[in-house]
C-alpha cells in the first residue's frame, strides 16, 4: 500500500513536469495594438542613469534617446539645434548665447525653463568631486540667464569647437534622484528596468520634435555573445547592433544585415615608455609586419576600413587616406629595422586584451600569427575589463594592448588630445615635442582650415612616429528583423531608436 502511494506521487510529478514543458510552447507575445520591438544589447546599463555621470559607451548610446542638450548631433555628424531654437557664438569663440525653444516638456510633463538649463550646465561644470563632472566643462567660466528664453555661456579661453560639448543633457532641477529615475526631454521615456534582464522605454507622446514611431522598446540583455545568434533566429530579439561578421552568415533570412562603421580606432597600442617599444624603429618594424588587410579578411571577410592614424572616415575633413599605405607589409624591412634596433632574432612581449571584446581577441590572435613571421613572439593575455581599465588604462603597466578607442564628441581633439604628452589619458606615454607643438597650434588656430591642417599634421606625426600599430575602424553590422526598418548609423557611439518603424505589410 505504501509503495503504491509512492509510485502515484512519482507519476504525478512527471506529469506536472511535462505540462510545464508544453506550457513553454504556448503562442508568441500577445499582440495588442501597441507596436513593440525587442532589441538585444551586450551589456546591462551598469552605469548610473544620470546623463552627466554616465561613462560607459553602452549607457550613453541608450541615454541618447532619453536626454537632449541644447544642440544635438544628426546622423551625418553635424550639430543641430535641439532645446535651443538658435545659437550664436561670439567673434573670439569665448561666449555662446542660446535662445531656448518654447513649450518643450520634460517626461514628467513639467516645462523646460532657463533655470533648468542653468542648473544642468552648472552641474556639469561643478568641480566639488575633484575635476568637473563632464571633463570638457572645466573650460566653462560662467552660465548666465539673460532672460526667460536666453542663456549665455562664457568660457575661460576661446574655443571654437566648444559647441560640440553643448549636447550635454538638460535635466529638471526638481529631479532629486537622477541616478535611478531619469527624466529628460528625449523621444522616449524610461519605464522600468530589471538588472541583467531588460530595460524598457516608452514613446514620449508630447515630444517637441518629430515623435518616435514604435510605442514600446524593450532592451533585452544578452550577456553571452554566443547566444546572440540563437536568440535572433529563435525570435526572442528583433534587433542586435554590432554583431560579428561570422554571426551575420548564420542569421536566418528573416533578418536584414545593415553595414556601417563602428567609429572606433582599433590599433595595437604600444606603451612607448617600455623597452623595446621606446625605440621608434621597433615600433615601425611592427607596423611593417602587421597587415591590416589580412586581419580584416580573416575576421570580417575583408569588411572594415583600414586606418593609418588615430582618425576614422566619419570625421570627414580630418581623415587622411594616404597614411594607410605608410607601412606596406614588408618582412625584410621589418627584420632589418629590428636588427638595427638590436633585436636581430626578434623578442617576445605580452599582448594584453580585454576578455569581453571578441573582435579585439580575434585581431590579437591574427597579429600574433603575423608577428611570428619576423620572429616576434606575442603572448596573448586576456584580462577582465575592470582589470584592463585599472591596470592598463589608468595604471599604464602593460607592454601592448589591442583595443578600440571611440570619440566622446564630434571634435578632432576627442581622438587626438590623448597623445598630447601632458594629457591625463595618455596611457601609451607617447611624447613628442613636434606633436605637442602641432596640437597647440591647432588649438589656438582661429580659422577652421588652419585648424584642420594642424590636426592633420598631428595625425602624420603619429603615423611616422609609429606611436601605435593602427589597424581598422571595425565594420559594424546591425541585424534587424525585416518587420522593422529605419535604422540609421551615427558617427558617434549612438543608437537612435526614434527612427525605427514597423514596416506595414
Amino acid at each position, binding site marked *: 500500500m*505504501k*509503495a*503504491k502511494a*509512492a*509510485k502515484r506521487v*512519482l507519476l504525478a*510529478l*512527471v506529469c506536472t*513536469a511535462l505540462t*510545464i*514543458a*508544453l*506550457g*513553454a*510552447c*504556448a503562442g*508568441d507575445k500577445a499582440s495588442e495594438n501597441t507596436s513593440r520591438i525587442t532589441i538585444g544589447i551586450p*551589456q*546591462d546599463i*551598469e*552605469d*548610473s542613469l544620470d546623463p552627466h555621470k554616465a*561613462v*560607459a559607451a553602452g549607457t550613453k548610446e541608450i541615454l541618447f534617446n532619453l536626454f537632449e542638450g541644447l544642440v544635438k548631433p544628426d546622423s551625418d555628424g553635424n550639430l543641430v539645434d535641439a532645446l535651443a531654437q538658435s545659437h550664436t557664438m561670439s567673434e573670439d569663440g569665448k561666449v555662446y548665447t542660446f535662445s531656448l525653444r518654447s513649450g518643450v516638456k520634460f517626461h514628467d510633463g513639467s516645462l523646460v525653463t532657463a533655470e533648468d538649463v542653468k542648473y544642468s550646465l552648472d552641474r556639469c561644470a561643478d568641480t566639488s*568631486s*575633484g*575635476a568637473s563632472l563632464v*571633463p570638457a566643462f572645466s573650460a566653462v567660466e560662467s552660465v548666465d540667464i539673460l532672460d526667460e528664453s536666453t542663456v549665455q555661456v562664457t568660457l575661460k579661453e576661446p574655443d571654437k569647437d566648444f559647441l560640440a560639448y553643448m549636447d550635454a543633457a538638460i535635466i529638471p532641477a526638481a529631479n532629486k534622484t537622477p*541616478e*535611478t529615475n531619469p527624466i529628460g526631454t528625449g523621444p522616449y521615456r524610461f519605464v522600468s528596468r*530589471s*538588472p*541583467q*534582464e531588460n530595460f524598457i522605454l516608452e514613446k514620449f507622446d508630447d515630444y517637441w520634435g518629430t515623435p518616435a514611431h514604435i510605442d514600446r522598446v524593450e532592451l*533585452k*540583455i*544578452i*550577456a*553571452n555573445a*554566443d*547566444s546572440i545568434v*540563437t*536568440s535572433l*533566429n*529563435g*525570435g*526572442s*530579439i528583433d534587433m542586435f547592433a554590432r554583431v560579428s561578421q561570422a554571426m551575420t552568415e548564420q542569421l536566418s533570412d528573416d533578418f536584414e544585415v545593415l553595414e556601417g562603421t563602428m567609429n572606433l580606432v582599433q590599433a595595437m597600442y604600444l606603451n612607448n615608455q617600455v623597452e623595446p617599444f621606446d625605440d621608434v624603429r621597433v615600433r615601425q618594424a611592427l607596423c611593417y609586419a602587421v597587415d591590416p588587410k589580412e586581419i580584416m579578411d580573416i575576421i570580417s571577410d575583408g569588411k572594415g576600413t583600414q586606418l593609418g592614424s588615430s582618425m576614422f572616415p566619419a570625421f570627414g575633413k580630418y581623415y587622411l587616406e594616404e597614411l594607410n599605405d605608410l607601412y606596406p607589409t614588408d618582412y625584410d624591412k621589418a627584420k632589418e629595422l629590428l636588427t638595427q634596433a638590436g633585436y636581430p632574432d626578434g623578442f617576445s612581449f605580452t599582448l594584453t586584451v580585454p576578455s*569581453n571584446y571578441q573582435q579585439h581577441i580575434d585581431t590579437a590572435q591574427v597579429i600574433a600569427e603575423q608577428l611570428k613571421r619576423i620572429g616576434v613572439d606575442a603572448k596573448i593575455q586576456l584580462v*577582465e*575589463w*575592470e*582589470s584592463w*581599465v*585599472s*591596470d592598463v*588604462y*589608468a595604471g599604464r603597466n602593460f607592454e601592448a594592448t589591442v583595443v578600440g578607442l571611440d570619440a566622446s564628441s564630434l571634435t578632432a581633439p576627442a581622438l587626438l588630445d590623448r597623445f598630447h604628452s601632458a594629457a*591625463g*589619458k595618455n596611457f601609451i606615454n607617447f611624447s613628442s615635442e613636434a606633436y605637442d607643438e602641432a596640437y597647440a597650434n591647432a588649438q589656438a588656430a582661429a580659422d577652421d582650415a588652419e585648424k584642420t591642417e594642424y590636426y592633420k599634421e598631428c595625425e602624420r606625426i603619429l603615423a611616422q612616429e609609429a606611436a601605435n600599430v593602427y589597424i581598422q575602424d571595425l565594420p559594424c553590422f546591425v541585424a534587424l528583423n525585416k518587420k522593422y526598418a529605419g535604422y540609421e548609423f551615427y558617427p558617434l557611439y549612438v543608437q537612435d531608436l526614434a527612427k525605427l518603424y514597423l514596416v506595414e505589410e
Partner: protein
Amino acid sequence: MKYFAKKLAGFIATLLAVSFLVFLAFAVIPGDPATAMLGTQATPERVEALREEMGLSDPLAVRYVRWAADFVRGDFGTSYSYHIPVTQMIGDKLPVTLTLTVLSFLLIVCISLPLGITCARRCGGMLDHVIVVANQIVMAVPGFFSGILLTLVFGLILHWFTPGGYVSYRTDWWRFLGYLFFPSLAIALPKIAMTTKLLRTSVLAETKLDYVRTAYSRGNGTKAVLYRHVLKNALIPVMTFLGMALTDMVAGSIIVEQVFNIPGLGRILLTSISNRDYPVVQAIIVCIAFLVISINFLVDLLYKLVDPRITIE
C-alpha cells in the same frame, strides 16, 4: 538542545568564514569599484575622491566589521553599479535561481527514481544494459555542452521553446516555468545519470541482505519486497548524494544561466564580480553559502528521519 546550539554555531562560523574569504578575495583582485564606475574617464584624483566617498580607502578590517554589522541588521547596502538596494536586487533574482534548482531537483527525483528501480528489478536484462550504458555517457556530458545541444535541437530545430526568450515570472508564471524546463534539464542530466546508477547499485546491494530473505519468507512477492522493504533502505546512500548534488547545482546553474541567457543569481554574480560591485557579490555569495549549508543541514535531518540507526551526535 546542545546539538542544535552546536550546529547553529557551526553554521554562523562558516558563514562568517565565507564572507571574510570574499572580502579577502576582493582585496586581492586588481581594479576597484571606483575605477570601475569611472571607466575610461578615470583620472587619478577623481578615483581618489570617489574612493573616499565610498569609504573604500579605510583598512580592510574596518570595512569588514562595518559590513558585518550592517549585514546582521539585514541592510545589505546598495549596489555600486545599479544604485538600487541589494536586498531588492537579490529578492528579484533569487526566485529565478531557486526555481531553476528546485525544478532540476524535481526532474532528478522523478526520472532517476523509477529508472533506478526498474533497472535494478530487471537487473541483467536488455533494458538494464541500455540504461547503464546511457548513464555512463550522459554522466560525461558537461552541463554547458548539453545546454548547447538542447538549444540546438529543441530550440532551433523543433521550436519547442524560443531560445533566449526568457519570460520573467512576474509577467507570465507558466511561460516562465516553461522556459526554465530545458535549462534545468541541462543541469539535471548528469545528476540524473549519477543518481540512477547509485540507486541501482544500492538496491542490488540491499537485496543481498538477510532481511530481504525474511521478507520473502513471509510470502511477499518481488514487487512488494522491492517497494516496501528495500526502497527505503536503498534511498539512504542516494540521499547523501542528492544533498551533495543539490549544493553542486546551485553553483552549476551559473554556467547554464549563461548558456540559456537567464538573469538569475549566477549572472548577477558574474557581472558584479567584473564590475567589482562588492555589496552585491558579498550578499550573493553569503546567500549561496547560506543555501548550501541549510541544504546540508536539511539532508542531515532527513537522514535521521529515514534511518533510525543514526544517533544524534
